[in-house]
């Protein structure tokens, strides 16, 4: 590990996470790779974590830090929901995350994207990067894989997409990031949250489209060698 890298430069951390609002709710997406150094410790992790029935958070950075923050906020939100007598709003969840991230900024290394649906504001996405800034956005990207997606989203993002369009955009984006970011990989998980509830989807690597310089996966070389030779053309 390079210990003498410039510690003053903000840096992103292993993962690709995305949150997108659409006409009626939000779609959250993430890859599934957890790495310790060069080794992939978990190739099928779930980085989209539930905080309440209607609010989820995408975690990036230190797995331990993001998990402990999620656990605390879930605990606070549970009590808040009981006291309030109704579901917590996305804004409250995001602000609780912000409080922990900001007040412990010297110790934590986690970037989070909070997304959900409530009856007051509908679908909302909040980005909480390193340092504990809270930014409400129509869409948010985070993690080391997000570096490869700024240009993509600048071009592909549109206001007022449908649920299907939004999910396709998220899956495409995570897939593109996985193609180029060594710290991202595995499967693409998405969570769609709207007034009807929550839907979890799972896209294994072989269900995604191929990008530049990627080949169709085969069972074995033998299948290629034994493949029937192509028919001669007829003019």
């Amino acid at each position, binding site marked *: 590990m390079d210990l003498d890298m410039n*510690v003053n430069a903000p840096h992103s951390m292993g993962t690709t996470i995305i949150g997108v609002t659409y006409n009626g709710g939000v779609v959250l997406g993430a890859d599934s790779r957890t790495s310790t150094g060069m080794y992939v410790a978990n190739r099928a992790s779930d980085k989209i974590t539930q905080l309440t029935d209607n609010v989820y958070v995408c975690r990036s950075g230190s797995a331990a830090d993001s998990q402990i923050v999620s656990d605390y906020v879930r605990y606070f939100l549970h009590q808040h929901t009981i006291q309030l007598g109704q579901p917590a709003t996305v804004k409250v969840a995001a602000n609780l995350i*912000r409080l922990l991230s900001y007040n412990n900024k*010297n110790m934590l290394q986690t970037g989070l994207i909070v997304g959900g649906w409530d009856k007051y504001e509908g679908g909302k996405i909040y980005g909480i990067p390193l340092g504990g800034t809270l*930014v409400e956005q129509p869409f948010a990207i985070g993690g080391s894989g997000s570096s490869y997606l700024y240009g993509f989203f600048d071009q592909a993002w549109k206001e007022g997409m449908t649920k299907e369009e939004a999910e396709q955009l998220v899956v495409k984006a995570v897939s593109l990031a996985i193609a180029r970011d060594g710290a991202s990989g595995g499967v693409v998980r998405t969570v769609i949250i709207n007034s009807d509830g929550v839907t979890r989807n799972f896209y294994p690597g072989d269900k995604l489209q191929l990008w530049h310089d990627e080949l169709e996966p085969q069972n074995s070389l033998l299948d290629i060698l034994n493949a029937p030779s192509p028919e001669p053309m007829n003019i």
Partner: protein
Amino acid sequence: MASKQPENSLLSPESDSQRTLYPYVTGTSVVALKYKDGILMAADMGGSYGSTLRYKSVERMKPIGKHSLLGASGEISDFQEILRYLDELILYDNMWDDGNSLGPKEVHNYLTRVMYNRRNKFNPLWNSLVLGGVKNGQKYLGTVSMIGVNFEDNHVATGFGNHLARPILRQEWHENLSFEDGVRLLEKCMRVLLYRDRSAVNKLQIAKITEDGVTISQPYSLKTYWEFSAFENPAQGAIGSW
């Protein structure tokens, strides 16, 4: 990460003194000037993450109470925290319900104390602040830095603005600028910053505060000029393109 594991410390992590070592999400210059009816302030809407221009809709100017306007550069999370401190300050001020309200001079003084005391504890709020306002016809424009340096002037700026905008303002500012002239002067400064500041973003807001209150403009972009003949062929006659 240096801040997480000090090698020479025998203390447990909980008793490590907290200190901000470096900013993460930052805003660049704020420029402000006094004009006939009050203060004009300009700031772009960028939130940079190192060298990446990550956020492009960050509001870096906010009204404070009835008489003040605060603009900030530096770490955005610390600015958000300062806004919370000021919310509480204004709330307590209103709760007196005595007809008095904190003016810009008082808010500036409060901010100076906060910034300086944090600096003394080696845990600064990583911001440079511009505080402008009008109360009872008196215009006020001041600035505070992250180490507590504070002063007032007819025109102030933070960061790159000090180097690029202040010289323009020293030449062209005068007493009793009209609103139009003030806006044009600020836009001149912001355009130079857009050309020459790497962390500038072409989406800005201009805010005005007068005796009647605060108005923050909608976000807008400035036109830029690239069609100089010298730009088309800068290395005419030279070997190599430099």
